[in-house]
């Protein structure tokens, strides 16, 4: 083997390494008597260090470890999304975990490991590494979903997610195997270069392989018909975990899908028709089923399915503009969806709550700021100007029209107008419903406030000044062309 191409440069992995070190430190300190309280601090430190290293890596394009690791603008942007999601969900987690008496250091370690997996997924051109990243991400997530050990619903969520997750991973791995069978490589760069000869020699292997890969990641992003786990798992998992779920794994799934479909199999045009159907199904089913839910977490679960559908639209259209729009949307979605969940988490720290719509009544008069923030996040989810949600949708759908997918855009716009109804229900419950009993006070603390500030600034900032963020996503996408 030729070692000169090895380029074993550990600085390339500094973000991942800092996460791993902090994760292990939390675990090992956690078993000592005094070290239990370091979980939150160390976790936050690890994430911020990783974020700093990632930002520092911005703009570089380096490949190392025998071509297995690639750090480019694309991976950097995704890593920033993962780390932001991690930081925000960590900020809101501690209060909740303490209130529910499940504040164990393992929680923070698991979040860190899971993000590590996501970062690995986003930082490679090799299907095997992407798969390993996926598993590193998923296994901690299974545990996190069931983290509320003495709550049957949380247990149910963990088990369900695990079983279907394992099922999906199987398909993914099988798909990778088939692709390997077709081209004797798992390196997406080689696949992209030799695509046509591969398609000629073994079309069936190749197409079946791509289909199975698509299914594997379709599960992670919550695309219909691989979505059915989402409502149960979202509802059952502890709320900060749900917050993390709704963004992290979804973004990671899209990172992998974008690299695979828009780089590796860019020449496979037929995949568009399959993606088209998936996108339409996902938008329609997500939005329609969200309409009449009583539980906000469940509603947000269906809503997150719908949002995956919008990003699938970007993926269907393909090409630089469309994929950049998907990236921009994900970035915005990270902020406003996490913001919504942050408020939900804050509400759920109170005793005897179950995230029902009726629990929101009277919130506006008791906590006007919190209610206003919730309204902003809801409007952003619904795609109202001038929020990030509006620009994201505008960008995606105008991209679809430009790419000739007019019907896709029309269906998308229609379903997103349907969605307004259920997001509005939250606002109505907060502001416009008579409270039959006084709203139970919630306790704020600086961490929660910080999480809310980050998400609100992100949701509005991305909408008021979208230019530079759009540029950023375009650069990110351009980096792997």
């Amino acid at each position, binding site marked *: 083997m030729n070692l000169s191409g090895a380029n074993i440069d550990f600085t390339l992995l500094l973000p991942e390494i800092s996460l791993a070190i902090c994760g292990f430190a939390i675990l090992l300190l956690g078993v000592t008597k005094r070290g239990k309280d370091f979980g939150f601090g160390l976790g936050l430190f690890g994430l911020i260090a990783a974020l700093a290293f990632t930002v520092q890596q911005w703009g570089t394009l380096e490949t190392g470890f025998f071509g297995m690791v690639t750090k480019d603008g694309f991976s950097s942007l995704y890593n920033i999304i993962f780390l932001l999601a991690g930081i925000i969900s960590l900020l809101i987690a501690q209060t909740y975990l303490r209130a529910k008496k499940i504040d164990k250091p393992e929680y923070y370690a698991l979040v860190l490991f899971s993000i590590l997996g996501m970062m690995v997924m986003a930082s490679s051109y090799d299907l095997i590494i992407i798969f390993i990243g996926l598993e590193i991400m998923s296994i901690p997530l299974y545990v996190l979903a069931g983290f509320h050990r003495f709550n049957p619903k949380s247990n149910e969520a963990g088990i*369900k997610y695990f*079983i*279907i997750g394992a*099922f*999906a991973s199987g*398909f993914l791995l099988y798909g990778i195997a088939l692709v390997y069978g077709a081209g004797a490589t798992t390196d997406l760069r080689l696949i992209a270069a030799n695509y046509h000869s591969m*398609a000629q020699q073994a*079309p*069936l292997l*190749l*197409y*079946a392989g*791509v*289909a*199975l890969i*698509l*299914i594997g990641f379709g*599960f992670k992003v919550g695309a*219909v*018909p*691989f979505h*059915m*786990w989402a409502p149960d798992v979202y509802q059952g998992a502890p709320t900060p975990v749900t917050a993390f779920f709704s963004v992290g794994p979804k973004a990671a799934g899209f990172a992998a899908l974008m690299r695979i479909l828009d780089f590796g199999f860019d020449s496979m045009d*037929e995949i568009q*028709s*399959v993606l088209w159907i998936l996108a339409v199904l996902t938008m329609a*089913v997500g939005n*329609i*089923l969200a309409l*009449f839910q009583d539980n906000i977490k469940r509603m947000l679960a269906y809503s997150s399915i719908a949002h995956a559908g919008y990003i699938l639209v970007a993926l269907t259209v393909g090409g630089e*503009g469309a994929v*950049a729009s998907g990236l921009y949307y994900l970035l915005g979605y990270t902020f406003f969806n996490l913001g919504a969940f942050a408020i939900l988490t804050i509400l759920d720290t109170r005793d005897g709550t179950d995230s029902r719509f009726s629990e929101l009544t009277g919130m506006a008069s008791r906590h*006007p700021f919190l209610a*206003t923030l919730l309204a902003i996040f809801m*409007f952003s989810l619904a795609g*109202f*100007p*001038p929020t990030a949600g509006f*620009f994201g949708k505008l*960008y995606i*759908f*105008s991209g679809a*029209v*430009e790419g000739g997918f007019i019907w896709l855009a*029309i269906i998308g*716009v229609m379903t997103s*107008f349907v969605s*307004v*109804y259920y997001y*509005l229900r939250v606002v*109505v419950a907060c*502001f*416009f*419903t*008579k409270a039959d009993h006084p709203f139970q006070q919630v306790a704020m603390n600086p961490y929660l406030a910080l999480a809310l500030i980050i998400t609100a600034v992100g949701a509005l900032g991305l909408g008021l*000044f*979208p*230019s530079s963020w*759009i540029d950023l996503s*375009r650069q990110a996408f351009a980096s792997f062309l």
Partner: protein
Amino acid sequence: MNTVLPLIVLFPLVGFLINFLLAGKLSRKLVGIIGSGTVLISFLLSIKAFLDLTALPADARIISDTLYNWMAVEGFSVDVSFLLDPLSAIMILVVTGVGFLIHVYSIGYMAHDEGVGRFFAYLNLFMFSMLTLVLASNFLLMFVGWEGVGLCSYLLIGFWFERDSATEAGKKAFVVNRIGDFGFLLGMFIIFWNVGSLDFQTVTALAPSAFAIGGTVITAATLLLFLGATGKSAQIPLYVWLPDAMEGPTPVSALIHAATMVTAGVYMLARSSALFVMAPTTMMVVAVIGAATALFAATIALFQNDIKRVLAYSTVSQLGYMFMACGVAAFGAGVFHLMTHAFFKALLFLGAGSVIHGMSDEQDMRKMGGLKKYMPVTFITMLIATLAISGLPGISGFFSKDEILWQAFSSDLGHPALWFIGMITALLTTFYMFRLIFMTFFGKERMDEKTKSHLHESPKVMTIPLIVLAILSIAGGWIGIPKLFFGATNFFEHWLEPVFAPAQRILHSSEAHHAASTEWGLMAITVTLSLGAFALALRFYLKKPETVTRLRESFPGVHRLLYGKYFIDEIYDRLIIRPLHFFSIFLWKIVDVLLIDGLINGGAFLVGGVSRVMRYAQSGRLTSYVTVFTVGVALITGVMLLLGYSIGN
């Protein structure tokens, strides 16, 4: 940022922030002063901007101000930028001027309300959005304002959310408006796709080369935009939300649902006149829908007993007039009527508010009567507004209405039938407006003793805006006196000429040469018949009230149909809302739960004992998930295999 335009928009936002963030911490008085003061500043700045504009030569009357580049993606660049031209100049004057008066009035009207801080905050937020809408230099920014005013309208309709009907009405307004917004957004996409820009000036300049006149694309785009306009401006088929919107406080009805927001659709049409004239089909649709709405809503207004509902249907009807004007390419006349309507309809609503205020929140006209003695100022100002809307020669409504009727008759796109419908509507308008006046201010005092003892004229803070609006309702039309009268050019149309010049160029319209005698003749017909309608109202509602009952008994069906508002709400409910609700429940309950579970259980039934094991393991749902998953896998893999197979061969 080198003009006052951003400041005009900004001040109401400042007012909103102060009132919203400091809600409950400021005294009632201060809240009102901040709320109205910021709008007053905007109004003064608008006057300055207007004067700046008049200082420019007529064909160069454009002031634009770019704040920053909002988004720039390859080939897609949108600025946050404001545009002042003769059209938007008139709009900001109307919006801030009438808006300021209504703010002042609200200080009195909302004096006893708990949420006065919230009220002024929303009202200011509305002004901010409306000014953004009006001053926007491109479709996207306009859409931002468009959504903003919709949101504020929703917030304000549901302001008294202790009433369920208010919440419901707010929701209805919101949902209906989303249908319109859908049209706006798609229309915008199509325009951008073909022109490559969303900037009004660029679109206007490039439209003739980007679209074929009468082509499918431009027809689709303009029809979609018009769908947006029907939502916001309450035209058939999306008018249903406006009458319900009267659940909001009366100043809101005056500001948002009469004077400003609902005219946004007309403004948008005028703004994109160069696009609309390229699609004759759309123009015809606009004119027909406008005329139909005008007539339709006027007939409903005939027998409503709630004073605000009469005015609401009247607003729908008058908006129909404006659209009819736009549909015959008389955009100037439409905007002129928009302006005069803003004056007299705001006045009517505020007057109605004053009546309701004096009557201890009673809105049913059957329980009023004889109020002129108690509320002289309200009575006289409302009478002036009624005369204006009925088109008494010499005051504002006459000139604008007459202009529209004449254009409907004489314009190249017009038709005598349109004129006829407009004329009938005018008669009906006179009838129902005088019915309102007679039932409210004349005749027997039908209120109970308790209400009667509280009857009083409203405080000065409310009556002064009424008086100012009354003066505007009389004189506001004088700037647009047709050439016919004094031979002088119609100043108003002349002022707007540069804005609509591109549209006129596309139409190649020659000055229609109809004899002046025709115009005089038509005018005479309208005025005479209106007088007849007045006499009829006088007879029915003042002289011989029993005739009404007799008529009602002779034609019970007609009355029920009109009183029941043609049962449109019920029809919509049956045809659209319930099926959608049903569909959603169907998907959820039947497909998700029953069908899929049923499939499993049905399959399990076939396979006998397996079902028992499944239930024992309590994993019925999970297995059904996995089943759906597997079906998905099979379908996707199958499709891909077929695709791969076809590639291989």
